[in-house]
């Protein structure tokens, strides 16, 4: 998976700004979104359970969520490319826990064509 945040590898600009400085939007193409639902890993959960005695960062979970956000972003980028956009503006992320031990990561934004 190439890094979806990297403009050079995707050819697409992503930002959570509504207007990019010095750029003009030629056309708005609608909302694009990418989402992924992840369940926590049983093995990581046992380790995290042990870690919960002494406290501190649960690195396994940090990485898991980071991967999930990258994947959600990647999917959003795919949607944007499919409508012919070269940028996604006003990007937002949300996290919802669906059931115990599973979470949905959603990324969405407006697909646009910049001049």
């Amino acid at each position, binding site marked *: 998976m190439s890094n979806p945040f990297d403009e050079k590898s995707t050819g697409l600009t992503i930002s959570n700004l509504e207007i990019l400085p010095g750029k003009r939007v030629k056309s708005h193409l609608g909302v694009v979104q990418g989402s992924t639902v992840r369940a926590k890993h049983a093995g990581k959960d046992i380790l995290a359970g042990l870690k919960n005695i*002494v406290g501190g*960062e649960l690195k396994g979970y940090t990485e898991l969520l980071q991967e999930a956000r990258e994947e959600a972003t990647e999917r959003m980028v795919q949607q944007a490319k499919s409508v012919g956009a070269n940028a996604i503006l006003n990007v937002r992320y949300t996290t919802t826990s669906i059931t115990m031990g599973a979470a949905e990561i959603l990324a969405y934004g407006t697909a646009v064509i910049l001049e």
Partner: protein
Amino acid sequence: MSWVDYLDWIVFLTLLAVGYFAGRAAESRHFASIRKREKELAKVLAFATKYPPAAHLPQQVRLVSGSAVVGSDYFKQFVASLRTLIGGRMKSYESLLDRARREAILRMKEEARRHGYRLVVNVKIESSNITGGNRGGLPAVEAFAYGTALKPVAPAEPDRAV
């Protein structure tokens, strides 16, 4: 052997003591590291405002983000669990959330600096409970910070970004 009769008490009190000492040590270490890195990264500016300075100049942009999942220790869990019975300010988890948020912002700034940016605008922070409530789940909080990093397109004067 009568100590076996008290095994549950022994386990509980041991976990409580281990949680207290280890958790407190981990927390003060984490805060110390956060303060140190906040000083180091003071040059990377972050704002929650939407409109960047010099909004009219073309800029290079990149979405940068950082996140941290911080778990509670056994002592904090016990105190918090008693606290939920009567309500009120849950002091034992406040510092946990503070650590997670500041760590997330730091990681976002680190990512920005790694790619040569010194300014992040429109910073959003969200905190979530990734384990779906406290019933049987692990008491851990996640903070996620993201924003748009900006630098002028003209590569000759990177220091004038601000």
